[in-house]
Every structure is written in C-alpha cells, then in structure tokens.
C-alpha cells in the first residue's frame, strides 16, 4: 500500500513533499503580503481621515463577507487583465500572464490581509497612550517613536493573532489548487487520479497539513516566548 509513496519516478513521495513545500512557500508569502496590507489598512483605520477609514472598512467587510473562492476566481480570471490594463497606462502594450504562484499569493494575501488588519489595529490600540507621550517627551518621532518604541510592543501583542491568521492562510491556500498551482491539494488530486487511490492520497494530504500546523504552532509559541521576555508568563496554558 505504501509503495505509492516511494521516491523517484515510480512513486509519489517526492511529489507530495514538493507539494507540501509549495504550500508552505505560498502560505508564507501570502502571510507576508497580508501583514503588509494589514499594516497599511490598520494605519488607514486608525487615521483621522474619513475617506481612508471608509476604504479600509469596505475592504475588510468585503473580504470577511464574501467567500474566499469568489475572491480567488476574481483574481484568477481578472488578475492578468488588471495588470495589462495598468501596464497599458504606462505605455506597455504586450500580453502579460501572471503565473499561478503570483496570483495565488495575491489572492490569499488579500484575504489574509483583512484578518491581519484587524489583528494589527487591535494591537496598536492596546499599546498604552502613555508610551506615545513618553516617546514624544524623549524627543523621538517618526522611526524613533514608531520603529523603536511602538513596533516592538505591537509585535508582541499581535503575535498570537498573527499565529491564528497563519492557520487560516495555510488552509486558504488549498483553494488556489483550483487555479492550477501544484501544492498539497492539487498534487494529491493528480496522484489520486492517476493511481485510482484517492483515499490514501487524501489521507496523506491530511497528515501533511496537520504536520505543518503542528510545526508552525511550535514555532509561533517559541516566537511568543521570545517577544514576551520580561512579561508575566501566561502560566500553564
């Protein structure tokens, strides 16, 4: 039964592991893109400018209220068109096709960005006002204030939330298999189709996802401990 997972040209073992690697890569790049989007939109939500607030709120409402699959279809079918449209404005008239990895990263990044926005906004809000005032009193501004004083505190508070966003992002990447990116989901579909053994390949995929989840939990716990040094430990959770 397990010879189908052998390595090399006769089995699917190495292909499945490559699929797992692709899942991790696309999840990680989507998470990073999402955090970037999250920082920008959290800044918009926290700003006093009405129009920025509206834009940020519309974005998070749409992403949280519309199925991920629809967002992925929009970018999969419309992504290249949008890029070509923008390129045309800048005078480039050729055909541009985005690869599945780029589209997948943009799509899942846009989804995870909405969740990251809320996490980061909450974290910035929970930094005590006195920290801002104390920083200003010390003559800090710009990078000095936000980079050296506020960011480390926001990072510490946001980390558990980002850990949750990572879990969601990891699972959302399964959806981009419908666009053809060969990650765990797609690879197990291909393998199941060619060997007529869907049960064991989907079981293998389940195990791979659980392993990735478990390992990333351990990593996030470590990071939380590192960032929480000097704070009261959360006890026997």
């Amino acid at each position, binding site marked *: 039964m397990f010879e189908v997972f052998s390595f090399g040209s006769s089995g699917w073992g190495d292909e499945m592991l490559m699929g797992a690697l692709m899942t991790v890569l696309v999840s990680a790049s989507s998470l990073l893109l999402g955090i970037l989007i999250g920082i920008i939109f959290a800044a918009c939500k926290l700003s006093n400018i009405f129009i920025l607030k509206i834009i940020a709120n519309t974005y998070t409402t749409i992403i949280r209220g519309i*199925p991920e699959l629809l967002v992925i279809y929009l970018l999969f*079918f419309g992504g290249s068109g949008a890029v070509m449209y923008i390129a045309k404005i800048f005078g480039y008239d050729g055909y541009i096709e985005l690869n599945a990895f780029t589209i997948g990263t943009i799509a899942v990044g846009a989804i995870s960005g909405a969740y990251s926005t809320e996490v980061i906004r909450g974290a910035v809000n929970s930094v005590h006002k006195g920290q801002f005032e104390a920083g200003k009193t010390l003559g800090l501004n710009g990078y000095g204030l936000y980079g050296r004083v506020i960011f480390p505190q926001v990072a510490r508070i946001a980390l558990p939330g980002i850990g949750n966003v990572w879990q969601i992002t990891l*699972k959302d990447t399964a959806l981009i298999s419908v666009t053809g990116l060969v990650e765990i989901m797609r690879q197990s579909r291909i393998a199941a189709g060619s060997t007529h053994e869907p049960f064991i390949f989907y079981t293998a*995929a389940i195990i791979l996802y659980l392993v990735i989840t478990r390992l990333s939990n351990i990593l996030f716990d470590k990071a939380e401990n590192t960032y929480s040094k000097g704070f009261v430990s959360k006890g026997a959770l």
Partner: protein
Amino acid sequence: MRFELMYESFFKIIEGIPLTLQVVSISTVLGLALAIIVALMRISGKKSMSIPAYYFVYLIRGTPLLLQLYFVYYGLGQFSFIRDSILWPILKEPYWCGIITLTISTGAYSSEIIRGGILSVSKNFIEASGALGLNKIKTFLLITLPITVRQALPAYGNELILMVKASSLISIITLMEITGIARTIISKTYAPVEIFLVAGSIYLIINFIIVLAVGLAERKLGTVKAN
C-alpha cells in the same frame, strides 16, 4: 463595466440562492447537534470521552475544508464495501457529501464555541440550583443551557457567516449554487469583475441579514453577567 451583463447574470445567479440556503441550514442544524455532543464529551471529565473529542476538533480545525470535501466525496467512494453499503445512495450524491462535510466542519468549530459558553457559566449558579433541589438534568436544561446560548450567540453568529462562505466550496463538486453559477458565467463571458460584484453582493446581503438576525436575537435574549 457591462451593466447589461450584470443585470442578466443577476437573475441567473439568484437561482442558486435556494441551494446555498438549503445546504447551509441543513448542515447548521445537524452541525449544532454534533457540536453539543462533542462539547459535552470534551467537558465530561472522562478521558475516554474527552480525548477523542479533542482529536476530532484538532483534525477538523487543522485541515482545509476543501480537503475534507474531497476526502468524503472522492476518498470514501474508493472502497467497494462503502459502495456496497446502504450508505452509498447518500455518499454518491455530491449534495449529501457537501452537507456531511459542512456538518462535520461546523460541528467541530461550534463545539469550541459551545464549550466556551458552558464553561463561562458561573459555579455559583450551579450550586444555587443544587441548593434549590434541582437535579443534574434540570440544572443543565434550565440554568446552564439558557446562559450558554446567550454567551455563545455572538461567536455563533460569526460561525454562521463562515458557513455561508464555506458553502461556496460545494460548487467544486459540481453543485450549482451561487458560486457555481457565477463561475460558469465568468468562464463563458470572461467578465470576472462584473460577476464578482453581483455574486459578492448577494453573499454580502445574506450575511448582513444574518448579522441583523443574530443582533436581534441577542437583544431579545438580553445579556447576563457571567459571574
């Protein structure tokens, strides 16, 4: 923007609403029953009950819904003993596979919500009802359950929205609900933005109604202080 196309596709896409709502409501009801069982198993204090419940929740929350759907729809059908069993008329239908998968998924997620709700019921209430002479079952039905419902309602509202969103996945196993119809129109007309706006608005309206309904229920039931 092709407004005429949006107008035409709107009437095609709304034909998918009944299927979406049907699948969501059936699996929500079944899933709630499953969630209560799993939550009670987890807080039972017996290891033989709480450990399987813990791993069930862990397994479902740690894997993508799409994979679970493929597992039920394609994976189980591989075995001849399943194909010969009395369950096969159900398991060969994508409709029932979708409902089974969504039921299991929402069962796992909601069991955590319900568990949190039950645990938030103060011990004082339980002791007080014991002092009044109520037995365990009466205490659960008359004291714990009503408080749990109120405590868990906001989080459960979120779960309902997640269910509406999750139901879009059943379009991948050939069911023509909102997303399935939208996808078909996109691949025919190649107008992703227009169709996305139409189908997306329909989902937003459904979810908005859920938010309003849950908010109404919350106000009607009132809130209790947990302690």
